[in-house]
């Protein structure tokens, strides 16, 4: 069984490019050229140089001793939180900004939820001297205020998305509308493995450096390049895609995709797409999404802005649907609790998104000898205001 994308841009029955004609020339051009451009030797050289000297790669693989003792298994953390700008998102924006330059684009747009992709995009635009516009839901502008200031300091224009739930879905709608109105000069840097083909595959390839490094680091540290399980949180699914990528064909490596259940899966305030979702189209991709029986997209909820999305990338829809990946749902409270556990036991404050991956440890059973890698997708600086509200409950 293959979990790769096929030549038409589908993972099994999921994927494709369901875009209005206004976007067709750009999407078609990307489909034809992305692989050719990104694997040119000079492109690879420039990208790898930046990933090393600017981003700080390889990111460490850290054996979490105390956490391992607590959960009676061997836990390794892939430290994407230590990247420049504080998350995995920069792996993709470095790649896409170089691609945008090759395509001769003069203006960059992006959507952001937690603000990490917005910051990573604003950063590479500053680096290259290119105009940057970031769409962000009004609710997220409030709850991720530090990242809004960072984007502004970096010279990006942050435009609030005021429709719908005023979160990531709506920011993405606005970015798409911007692209429709500026099709010639603008490249849209999508921040996750979502959107029309080739975005899911392109972003997964740029993020695949995570599992590429993991193989080498695990071999060094454990003698075996394969772990028993990889745990990653899933908003759209880019950090998970990067962490799974080079293990897709190794069925012995278990994939655990952790979704946000908000106030509880069936509370009506949730973003657990694999449980609540059905097949349909969102943001140009055929995938699983939360929708009414009439096909109206349901507004999701999670305390974590980066997971507050009613869809899931087509690659993950296929992995979960086929049983290759197991989906686990984690509530706001469980994630908060896990964030404090990690902080107090290992001295690492995780992003609220990444904290969801750690909460899965409470719900899974591993053997003592199992090697479990958790993709620590980002750091928690941006979430301090939220964490502060829960010092009393979880910080004792």
């Amino acid at each position, binding site marked *: 069984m293959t979990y790769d994308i096929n030549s038409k841009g589908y993972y099994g029955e999921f994927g*494709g*490019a*369901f*875009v*209005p*004609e*206004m976007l*067709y*020339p750009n999407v078609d051009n990307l489909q034809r050229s992305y692989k050719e451009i990104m694997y040119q030797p000079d492109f690879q050289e420039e990208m790898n140089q930046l990933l090393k000297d600017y981003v700080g790669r390889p990111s460490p693989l850290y054996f979490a001793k105390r956490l391992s003792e607590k959960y009676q298994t061997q836990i390794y953390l892939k430290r994407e939180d230590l990247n420049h700008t504080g998350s995995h998102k920069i792996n993709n924006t470095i790649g896409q900004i170089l691609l945008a330059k090759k395509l001769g684009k003069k203006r960059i747009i992006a959507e952001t939820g937690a603000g990490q992709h917005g910051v990573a995009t604003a950063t590479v635009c500053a680096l290259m001297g290119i105009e940057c516009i970031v769409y962000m839901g009004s609710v997220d502008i409030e709850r991720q205020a530090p990242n809004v200031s960072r984007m502004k300091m970096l010279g990006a224009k942050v435009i609030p998305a005021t*429709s*719908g739930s005023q979160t990531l*879905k709506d920011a993405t*709608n606005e970015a*798409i*509308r911007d692209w*429709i*109105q*500026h*099709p*010639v000069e603008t490249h849209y840097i999508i921040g996750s493995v979502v959107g029309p083909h080739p975005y899911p595959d392109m972003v997964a390839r740029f993020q695949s450096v995570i599992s590429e490094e993991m193989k080498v680091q695990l071999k060094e540290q454990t003698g075996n390049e394969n772990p028993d399980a990889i745990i990653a949180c899933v908003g759209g699914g880019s950090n998970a895609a990067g962490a799974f990528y080079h293990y897709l064909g190794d069925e012995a490596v278990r994939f655990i995709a952790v979704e946000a259940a908000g106030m509880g899966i069936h509370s009506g305030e949730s973003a657990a797409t694999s449980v609540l979702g*059905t*097949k*349909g*189209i*969102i*943001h*140009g991709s055929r995938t699983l999404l939360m*929708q009414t*029986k*009439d*096909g*109206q*997209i349901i507004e999701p909820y999670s305390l974590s802005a980066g997971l507050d999305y009613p869809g899931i990338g087509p690659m993950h829809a296929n992995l979960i649907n086929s049983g290759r990946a197991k989906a686990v749902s984690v509530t706001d409270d469980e994630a908060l609790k896990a964030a404090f556990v990690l902080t107090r036991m290992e001295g690492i404050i995780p992003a609220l998104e990444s904290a969801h991956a750690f909460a899965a440890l409470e719900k899974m059973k591993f053997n003592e000898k199992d090697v479990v890698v958790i993709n620590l997708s980002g750091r928690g600086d941006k979430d301090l205001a939220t964490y502060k509200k829960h010092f009393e409950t979880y910080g004792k």
Partner: protein
Amino acid sequence: MANKLDQLFEKKQSDILNIYFTAGFPNLNDTGNIILELEKAGADLIEIGMPYSDPMADGPTIQDSGQIALENGMNLNLLFDQINSIKKQASTPLICMGYLNQVMQFGENNFIRKCKETGVDGLILPDLPLDIYESDYKNLFEENDIKICFLITPQTSDERIREIDRLSTGFIYVVADSSITGNSKGISPKQIEYFERINSMNLQSKKLIGFGISDAQSFKTASQYSNGAIIGSAFIRAIKNGQQDLNTNISNFISSILN
């Protein structure tokens, strides 16, 4: 029964006025009335928007009207009932416009059957890809005589325009500008160049120009370079903010375009 769109194009090839409105707006049960009033006032073709939560090709005016319609309780079953209830009184061709996900969730076969039953003549689904139409939908549409209308924009290549011309069975929707719906800046020399380029291709399909057509002037100019034009956001604004009751607003707006 013959397709009303075919009949229209047989008897009229110029200055075709196509009006878009959002079903369920301003009030849930206005649909039938709006269709009848538009017909009386002189619209040649009516495009019914199926309100959607995430209409990515639409600007703020149509987004807002759709949001209100959904809050009013609009859905596709109700829409088909509303259209069916005026079927005997209305003879203007009807086109439904919406997004593919709505059709998928309703069930493609069901949806097309309902269109046929209620007298909907054609569809505009901006996010339905050409290749998917050809492989999955074409037979179903043709068996039921439901027309499909594809969009072209200033960036669409000649080669693709030929492909779209080959597959369009309704009309080609010529998007006037790189735009979402609702922008109105008048028609520029560059746009006219684009319209002329399209005309020089001698396509077999009828062409209607839309996006940014808002008044008598832009309607007249667009019609010089096509078989007619489509007005959406300007009409929505007129029935939303109009001074009079709905029917007067409709007839005033249409006369402002035609006179």
